């Protein structure tokens, strides 16, 4: 009995010690990992290394050029020399910093069918049409140059170059001698490098979409809207005096007849939605000057920048997220009629219109004033064809279609869609490269952001979109190398949609900036009251065990 009484304080002390150790054990072994795991942010793993690879990868864009020789008299050696010269001319500085444009050439003799077509064609349009009919497949990105021997019927003497409606160019070679062949090289080079495949513009677009800054301003690159899967086009008629002139416009017919072919041609690449509206009693706020010589009112180019802003609010904001291009037809008021835009030489411009980059265009449409005794308001009609001719040209420029001029050549007129197929190819290549560069840059900065900030939650769908974007970019690189332009464009479109969706996902907001000291401020009131007693008990336990050891020694 005495023994147990003596040992009970010892026994209490040991239970105390062991229970303190038990609590400490639970805290450290179970509690800490549990707390760590439950306060972890959910982050789906992203292919960071793959994205870095893509950002460093070089984009290779191939262009196929076929040269068809009709004249059998040309020496084979001369032909191969010509081929070498042309190849050398086209190489050279073909892109820089991540973009390389490779020209693949093919030199062949004309087929039997083609020779027969040449014999029976009356003029170049016929020739162009018939030769195109021979082609079965739609060949985006492949250009053909037909070198036609001396033929006065087809080339009556004005120019020796004819640019066809699709992707063909017909060149007139007066004699089968080597010098004549070689003279074609400096003609072919600018057509291929600068017009069909505008290497300089493509490189610039690629670089700026990849994130490089451009200090100098370049009109062409700033004019077109950014690449987007869809665009909205709004036609507005501004009639400031509807009490005097009742302006009617058959916009439905105008769009169906003149704009629809353009929209349909682009339907598989970009969707264009058209809206129209009429605004009454809206004036353009300016005072035009009066030209006394011919009673015209005029605006110079310096006055034009201030016209758009006052009316922009009235044009209405629209619902979709696509970029909107506004085309405004303004009927000048009776006291400012006729109103013209004068260029620097003080001549009225042919189209009486101007465009604002990435916004749209304005056309000043002069209407005759009503006669003396007609009942007001007088009915007038807007000339749809003239209006659409101007606006379609502006729309093409705003969407990024090339404005190439061929000073020495005759160019075929496009059909009602307004697009020549080589222009379409240029646009596809331009947009594909822009999409690729932009989505790669987006993914790279997203990856950087997510790696840097550890407490952003990365959801599953962001991971999915990033994966999808990365796959599509890979696919697009391969397709561009093989010059499959249409498929490359479509996959680049997928890539940019997915990468934008991932980058701009609303859940990626790093809302709380938690400096380390604030983290302490949150955890200390929770853990300190518990951890101090546990810690002190553990110290006691250690002292107890040391005491026991000492006793044992004694």
């Amino acid at each position, binding site marked *: 009995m005495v023994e147990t009484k003596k040992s009970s304080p010892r026994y209490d002390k040991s239970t105390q010690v062991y229970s303190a150790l038990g609590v400490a054990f639970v805290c450290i072994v179970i509690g800490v990992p549990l707390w760590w795991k439950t306060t972890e942010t959910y982050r789906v793993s992203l292919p960071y290394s793959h994205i870095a690879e893509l950002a460093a990868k070089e984009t290779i864009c191939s262009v196929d050029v076929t040269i068809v020789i009709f004249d059998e008299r040309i020496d084979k050696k001369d032909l191969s020399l010509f081929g070498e010269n042309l190849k050398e001319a086209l190489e050279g500085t073909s892109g820089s910093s991540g973009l390389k444009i490779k020209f693949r050439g093919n030199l062949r003799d004309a087929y039997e069918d083609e020779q027969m077509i040449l014999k029976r064609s009356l003029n170049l349009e016929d020739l162009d049409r018939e030769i195109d009919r021979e082609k079965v497949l739609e060949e985006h990105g492949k250009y053909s140059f037909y070198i036609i021997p001396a033929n006065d019927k087809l080339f009556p003497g004005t120019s020796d170059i004819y640019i066809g409606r699709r992707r063909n160019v017909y060149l007139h070679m007066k004699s089968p001698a080597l010098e004549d062949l070689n003279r074609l090289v400096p003609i072919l080079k600018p057509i291929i490098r600068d017009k069909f495949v505008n290497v300089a513009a493509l490189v610039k677009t690629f670089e700026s979409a990849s994130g490089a*800054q451009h200090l100098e301003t370049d009109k062409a690159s700033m004019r077109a809207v950014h690449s987007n899967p869809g665009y909205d086009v709004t036609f507005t008629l501004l009639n400031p005096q509807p009490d005097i002139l009742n302006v009617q416009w058959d916009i439905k017919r105008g769009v169906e007849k003149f704009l629809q072919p353009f929209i349909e041609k682009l339907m598989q690449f970009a969707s264009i939605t058209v809206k129209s509206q009429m605004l009454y009693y809206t004036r353009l706020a300016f005072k035009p000057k009066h030209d006394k010589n011919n009673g015209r009112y005029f605006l110079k180019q310096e006055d034009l920048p201030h016209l*758009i*802003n006052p009316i922009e609010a009235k044009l209405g904001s629209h619902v979709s997220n696509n970029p909107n291009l506004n085309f405004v037809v303004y009927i000048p008021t009776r006291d400012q009629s006729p109103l013209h835009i004068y260029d620097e030489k003080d001549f009225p411009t042919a189209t009486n219109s101007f465009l604002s980059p990435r*916004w749209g265009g304005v056309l000043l449409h002069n209407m005759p004033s009503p006669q003396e005794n007609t009942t007001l308001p007088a009915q007038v009609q807007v000339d749809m064809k003239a209006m659409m001719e101007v606006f379609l040209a502006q729309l093409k420029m705003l969407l990024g279609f090339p404005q190439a001029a061929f000073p020495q050549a005759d160019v075929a007129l496009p059909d009602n869609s*307004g697009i020549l197929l080589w222009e379409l190819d240029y646009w596809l290549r331009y947009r594909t490269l822009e999409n690729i560069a932009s989505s790669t840059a987006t993914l790279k900065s997203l990856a*950087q952001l997510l790696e840097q900030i550890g407490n952003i939650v990365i959801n599953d769908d962001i991971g999915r979109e990033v994966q999808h974007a990365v796959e599509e970019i890979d696919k697009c690189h391969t397709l561009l190398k093989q010059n499959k332009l249409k498929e490359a464009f479509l996959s680049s479109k997928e890539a940019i949609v997915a990468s934008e969706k991932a980058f701009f996902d609303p859940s990626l907001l790093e809302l709380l900036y938690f400096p380390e000291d604030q983290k302490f401020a949150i955890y200390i009131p929770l853990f300190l009251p518990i951890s101090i007693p546990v810690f002190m008990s553990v110290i006691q336990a250690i002292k107890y065990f040391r005491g026991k050891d000492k006793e044992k020694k004694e």
Partner: protein
Amino acid sequence: IAYFSQIILMIADDMACNPRNPRPAMVFNNANEQINVYGHDVEVDYRGYEVTVENFIRVMTGRLPPSTPRSKRLLSDDRSNILVYMTGHGGDGFLKFQDAEEISSIELADAFEQMWQKQRYHEVLFIIDTCQAESMYQKLYSPNILGVASSRVGEDSLSHHVDSAIGVYVIDRYTYYALEFLEKVTPESKKTLSQFLKVCPKSACVSTVGVRTDLFQRDPKKVLVTDFFGSVRNVELSPYTVTLNDTGDTGDSTASDRETCSADSCAPKKKIQRKKMSYVDQFPVEQFLKRR
């Protein structure tokens, strides 16, 4: 070169229609009621409880939910010049939002950096009018930002004058003099940013105006004020036309759908036998009530 005309206004918007406002729906820039700054064309995009730090950062970085209307988004691209003007109560490294939360200078710097990464701006003019305003732009590290602050760290920005009719100070000093300068700027004006930066010397403002130009690549002496204010657009004459073909259109307009039709000319509707509508038989409460 400004291509963009879009204003996003985030204010608590509890002043104009406040019961204490003796001139309802009007907010003036000074006690003499010179300019009604809450005029007809003011569109408040974020008001009241929507003015939060989160919404502000969402607008700047573009991470808005897909249902957000266009007018509430910042639709800028790599060629847009953006003016950001912030005012309120602030301190060293923060700005108060609505008395409930604060935005820190580091969050602001991160937001600008994300905009830069996504090429959402060409140049930014950042004006801030709070106490110790300079601290808000000190942490910025993205290029092409010009910062103007109404006071240095350690200084307070002061209000200008009180409107005794309302009983509060109606405008701050820096804003008052900046507004005075800007009211004189017309769209054709050739005034430069360096003139704007000199507005409100210490004699007028009592606090020292701080300017940060190291991130800005152009020389402020050569930058027009209208590059950031007034949205002067770049225009080009468009001399090109596309030749279109108008064949086969005679009679098209008459054959096309008529815009309106009357009961006779519209396609006659088939007479549908419609059941007469009536209420469903109701629960026979009366029978049960009668029982009692």
